[in-house]
């Protein structure tokens, strides 16, 4: 009886630990569904396979997210023609918060919503903002937590390097 109970406990603990698998560099980009902010369009982010994809999880209450948007705008403006697709996945519980944020901090790139938080769970987002840089084959090359101005140069160069690969 005791043995059985201990076994059940062990299985429970191991099960709890393995609920999430983090997406790391070298892993394939998970398949998950996002919607447009007005919930009218549903799409799978796998749709962008073949492009270099910059997946960015953000929220209106997150300070560094606001600082990251000008950089993402710059990336989008300079590299979209070479095959870069930025997907900024909003994690606000209330879409109006996101709309208010976007009025103050305009985004020229694609902004979508993950109202079920399935994408955030699949990517195992550990911080806000979190960015995942995915190559044309759908393999994650860089996982970046937070936003610091001094990292932008490195990110920019990495995006350019991935764009150069066919």
């Amino acid at each position, binding site marked *: 009886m005791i043995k059985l*109970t201990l076994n059940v406990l062990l299985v429970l603990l191991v099960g709890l630990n393995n609920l999430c698998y983090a997406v790391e560099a070298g892993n394939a980009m998970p398949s998950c569904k996002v919607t447009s902010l007005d919930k009218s369009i549903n799409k799978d982010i796998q749709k962008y396979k073949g492009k270099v994809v910059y997946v960015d999880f953000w929220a209106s209450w997150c300070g560094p997210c606001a600082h990251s948007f000008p950089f993402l705008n710059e990336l989008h403006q300079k590299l979209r023609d070479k095959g870069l697709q930025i997907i900024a996945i909003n994690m606000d519980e209330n879409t109006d918060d996101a709309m208010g944020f976007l009025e103050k901090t305009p985004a020229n790139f694609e902004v979508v919503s993950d109202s079920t*938080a399935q994408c955030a769970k699949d990517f195992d987002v550990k911080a*806000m903002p979190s960015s995942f840089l995915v190559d044309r084959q759908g393999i994650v090359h860089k996982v970046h937590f937070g936003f610091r101005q001094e990292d932008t140069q490195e990110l920019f160069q990495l995006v350019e390097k991935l764009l150069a690969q066919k």
Partner: protein
Amino acid sequence: MQAQLLFSRFIKCFCIGLILSLLGCSSVQPWERGTLAKPQMALDPYPLQSAIRAHNYSSREAGASSAAGQGGGCGCN
């Protein structure tokens, strides 16, 4: 025999208690911290004011023990 029965009951109760307590715990995911990020949710709503007050207090309050180890009372340390 009696002791074994008691032990087995204890383990059962412990497990049930553990499972029930686990139900009460839920971790807040990074993307769920919108409400926690609001200023009114901060433990200290005015951190700058608190820091200045603590600074003055430690300089001027000679009778206090732990906070009075520094300064000569001018508030400039």
